């Protein structure tokens, strides 16, 4: 192997480097100031600046590299392609919005905000590595970087009880799943002789039907991802952690973490790899169906808004898994994959919006937002209520929002590959989901109450919510070109 680390490689990973350096800024300043927090606005700007710089660099690098014959970095450790770019951007935007929420949320803004920014940016760094990883080991490193930062972020909340428990649960189960994942990696390594993903995929077609060890390995790896994206029955941590974690973190987990995990998932499942094992293909379908149903039926009876969103995010994982399966059986990878990516874009936007609204309500670190608490919100804050309505309708898949088009692309590709029954399950589940997505709307608009949200008139969270809402609708209506761009990027 030729370990030539050139300047070109460094340029290609410049977003990560910048992100890393930026993550150090606030905490360094804090140290230099004698362990005194600078103003939280300044910290926020530093963090956002880092994310923005990373995003700009990401874009630049992608523009420059996308046409080059060799998009690899660090001798096949990382790859710069459509998935890494798009999902990376999603992750950065989601991180940025979460950062804004953290700034406005009483559970996160305070003593240790600089550390929080550091962790958030580190987590984002992990995400960038994760989506760009072309090697299972690198992938694992990215995964752990992201996760470890998250564990700490959750544990750092000013809320003392539930967040600790959530962090602990997340940590134990996450490590447990990591071990499973890694065990799978070791088998793959043992059978293929490498952890380089393209090589593994190259062997998949042949090994999956002949070598049991390989099969065990690939199943463990896939299930490891299933844990990260909360596919039932590996979902059990999700509701507890989302509920216990401070809302901005929950938002980050539900969107960025999920998006990058799915992106990494996509890397494993590519062209026709699943066809070799009919049973794996079948059981994944059942897992998808189970996830959708479980997420939706459980969401119906929730009263805690965040927990409801957590279950809904499980259900959405089920929908996305349909897309992943489609990719696995499809000859046209880009068709299904772009559906998945597009869905991730849409899903992240609307979920961020919904969590942002929840965050807006939290008056202090111990706030628990029940759905019924929203009564009368539409009268007090018609604009915000309307934004939440848009997010929820989008989550339910009502046109012309991005949620509808996301589902449309996802299910279209599934139907195109003959997975009609999965599509049917998907659409039927979205009907069930409509029921609980309507509930907050009902409460806001149709019940009397005098709730007041905690935010000031024009705080950054509100701006983020408004922007997300506008994009949820606009990206829905003009989804065609974006989908085409994504698809072009992936092919």
């Amino acid at each position, binding site marked *: 192997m030729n370990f030539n680390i050139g300047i070109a490689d460094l340029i290609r990973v410049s977003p990560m480097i910048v992100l890393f350096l930026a993550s150090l800024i606030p905490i360094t300043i804090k140290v230099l100031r004698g362990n005194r927090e600078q103003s939280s606005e300044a910290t926020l700007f530093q963090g956002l600046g880092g994310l923005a710089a990373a995003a700009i660099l990401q874009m630049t690098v992608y523009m420059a590299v996308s046409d080059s014959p060799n998009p690899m970095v660090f001798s096949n450790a990382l790859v710069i392609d459509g998935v890494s770019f798009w999902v990376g951007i999603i992750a950065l935007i989601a991180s940025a919005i979460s950062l804004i929420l953290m700034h406005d949320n009483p559970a996160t803004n305070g003593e240790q905000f600089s550390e929080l920014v550091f962790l958030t940016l580190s987590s984002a760094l992990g995400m960038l590595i994760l989506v760009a990883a072309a090697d299972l080991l690198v992938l694992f490193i990215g995964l752990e970087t992201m996760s470890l930062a998250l564990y700490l972020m959750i544990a750092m909340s000013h809320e003392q009880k539930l967040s600790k428990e959530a962090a602990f649960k997340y940590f134990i189960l996450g490590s447990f799943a990591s071990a499973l994942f890694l065990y799978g990696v070791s088998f793959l390594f*043992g059978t293929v002789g490498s952890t380089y993903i393209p090589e593994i995929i190259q062997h998949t077609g042949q090994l999956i039907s002949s070598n049991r060890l390989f099969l065990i390995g690939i199943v463990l790896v896939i299930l490891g991802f299933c844990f990260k994206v909360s596919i039932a029955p590996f979902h059990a941590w999700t509701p507890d952690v989302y509920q216990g974690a401070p809302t901005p973190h929950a938002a980050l987990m539900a969107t960025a973490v999920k998006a990058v995990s799915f992106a990494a998932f996509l890397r494993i499942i590519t062209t026709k790899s699943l066809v070799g094992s009919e049973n794996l293909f079948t059981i994944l379908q059942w897992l998808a169906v189970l996830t959708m149903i479980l997420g939706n039926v459980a969401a119906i009876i929730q009263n805690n808004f965040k927990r409801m969103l957590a279950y809904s995010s499980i259900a959405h994982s089920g929908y996305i898994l349909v897309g992943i399966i489609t990719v696995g059986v499809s000859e046209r990878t880009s068709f299904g994959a772009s559906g998945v990516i597009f869905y991730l874009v849409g899903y992240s936007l609307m979920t961020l919006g919904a969590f942002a609204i929840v965050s807006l309500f939290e008056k202090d670190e111990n706030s628990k937002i029940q759905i019924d608490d929203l009564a009368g919100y539409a009268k007090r804050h018609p604009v915000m209520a309307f934004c939440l309505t848009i997010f929820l309708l989008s989550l339910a898949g009502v046109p012309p929002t991005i949620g509808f088009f996301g589902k449309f692309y996802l299910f279209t590709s599934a139907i195109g590959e003959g997975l009609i029954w999965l599509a049917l399950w998907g659409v039927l589940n979205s009907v069930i989901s409509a029921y609980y997505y309507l509930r907050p709307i009902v409460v806001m608009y149709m019940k009397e109450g005098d709730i007041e949200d905690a935010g000031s008139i024009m705080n950054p969270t509100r701006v983020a919510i408004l922007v997300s809402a506008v994009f949820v609708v606009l990206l829905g209506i003009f989804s065609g070109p974006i989908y085409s761009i994504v698809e072009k990027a992936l092919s």
Partner: protein
Amino acid sequence: MPSSDLFLEVGLSHYLVLSAILFVAGMAGVLLRRNAIVILMSVELMLNAVNLSFVAFSHYMGQMDGQIMVFFVMTIAAAEVSVGLAILVSIFKRYKEVNIRFFEHLKG
């Protein structure tokens, strides 16, 4: 291969079986023990089982990659443990308790 070889000659499968036993033991620890610290240790055991399997594969394939991976895994495991312990300490400060049955407030 005659069955006596199974005992006489130590091969890849022996290591793999051992690693599997370790892994399952770690899993059992996670599933069954009540003490949070023991659970943490069980997770570490699982990771070590993985390491063993990496090393074994590496050895029998005559490749160094696996050995390097183990370094990575160990590093990450160390980081994980530190994070885990940090969380546990903060939890202990709050609850004065490390029995995991105590942490069931989030449910439903």
